């Protein structure tokens, strides 16, 4: 097993009296794509926010690249790259200015050639002077991913990165994630797409009602649960898929 780039241990998160995350523990290793799946309100965004340092957990520990998130938050953040669910850069700035801003923040010195290479890698070599607000959704997602990777962090957090993308852009993003994995980055991915999770994740954790229900490789998850009555009931095409297992384990009801 490779070195852990993220270690979450005994995480508990409360919103007032409501406990959103209950004793969650998992690790993400270098060179793997780890999927965190769960219905709306299951606790995945809260867990991710705690890892990102946006939310203070009531208890538990988070280590990123060996740094304790509570004791060395800036070091922990320097060792992760984040793509948030909503693309969130200053719409008045150009693509080049945004790349330069985050390069500076992460302490990466960029020459004009480096910048050109980065923009070429996301097929925006002719759009460096375009304002971020003028880009399409897919182009914004690519900028967001390149910013998350600008400092080559050991851990990359991708929060529903393919939502709203067309199939071509989604496939392209999967390929980028696979390249990152090959380079040894650990990726924590949240997604609602079971197809995506099954296609690219090495391991998956299913979280529901704030607790991790199961963690395994996708094929094992299907194999282990294929004979459960609730999974068979969820099956629509005769063949058991990851989505059937997910529905079977987390229930049919719609969450808010």
């Amino acid at each position, binding site marked *: 097993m490779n070195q852990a780039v993220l270690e979450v241990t005994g995480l508990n998160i409360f919103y007032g009296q409501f406990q959103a995350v209950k004793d969650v523990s998992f690790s993400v290793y270098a060179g793997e794509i780890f999927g965190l799946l769960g219905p709306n309100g299951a606790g995945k965004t809260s867990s991710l926010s705690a890892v990102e340092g946006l939310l203070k957990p009531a208890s538990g520990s988070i280590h990123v690249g060996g740094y304790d998130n509570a004791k060395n938050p800036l070091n922990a953040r320097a060792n992760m790259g*984040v793509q948030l669910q909503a693309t969130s850069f*200053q719409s008045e700035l150009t693509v080049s200015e945004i790349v330069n801003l985050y390069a500076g923040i992460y302490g990466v010195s960029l020459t004009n050639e480096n910048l050109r290479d980065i923009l070429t890698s996301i097929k925006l070599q002719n759009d460096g002077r375009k304002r971020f607000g003028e880009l399409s959704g897919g182009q914004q997602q690519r900028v967001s991913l390149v910013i998350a990777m600008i400092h080559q962090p*050991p851990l990359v957090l991708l929060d529903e990165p393919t939502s709203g993308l067309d199939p071509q852009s989604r496939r392209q993003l999967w390929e980028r994630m696979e390249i990152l994995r090959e380079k040894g980055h650990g990726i924590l991915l949240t997604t609602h797409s079971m197809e995506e999770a099954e296609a690219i994740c090495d391991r998956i954790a299913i979280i529901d009602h704030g607790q991790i229900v199961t963690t395994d490789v996708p094929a094992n998850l299907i194999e282990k649960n294929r004979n459960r009555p609730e999974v068979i009931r969820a099956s629509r095409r005769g063949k058991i898929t990851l989505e059937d297992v997910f529905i079977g384990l987390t229930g049919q009801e719609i969450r808010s």
Partner: protein
Amino acid sequence: MTSITLPSNKVVMRSLLRADFTTQWRNRKSFILILIVPVIILLSWKGLVDKFGGAFVLSNCITVGLTAIGLMGYSNSVARDREKGIFQRLRVAPVAPSSIMVSRLCVQLAMILLMTTAVFIGGSYFDQITLTPMGYLLGYFTAFVGGAVYLGLGQMVVGLIKNAETVHSTSRLIYFIFIMVGMFGELGVLGKQIGDLVKYSPYGTVKHILASSFQPGTWDKSSTIALLLTIGYATIFSVLGIRWFRWNAAK
């Protein structure tokens, strides 16, 4: 994969400042709108220079400009960027929250400097109001002190209200009340009681210290009281604004 070391504060700050100043430059139309009101007052009050003095006219114009920068410029830009998630994106990077805010405040201080200079130039050009070098120097200093009151007030507005649209309309309303009650109260149009209240309001105290600093020889005990009150307002507004402020617009 090797662990990454933290960049220096200087590098981070330089990047933030460059981005914030560029954003402000791209939004320069809104700053021009902020500048228009004090300049219009400067032009329309030309006739009052002889009656009330140049310091009175200049101090009112700058106070109106400071109110606009704090309430219309600062609060709206913070509310808008918070709603867009720009702060959250910065906060997941290795940036201290204080650096994000210091960079924002630096932009506003530059705006105060520009607005005050524009009013000084306009006052000299259109109304032939000139001050001594010390008057100009102290004028800039008190403009920054007075600006802190309205930046604090703007911070309080974004601390209390999360929705950017509501921040926008609320800050406009407060701005309108401040300048209307402040200016007309100062002129005695709203009666003695309101006039006395205005004297000790954030509008009145800022206007008072500005007017006194333009003519350092006129600085007296009431100017010192106004300065202390101004610092008090700035402190209270800032402390409450920071305490109530949430980086995320979502509940």
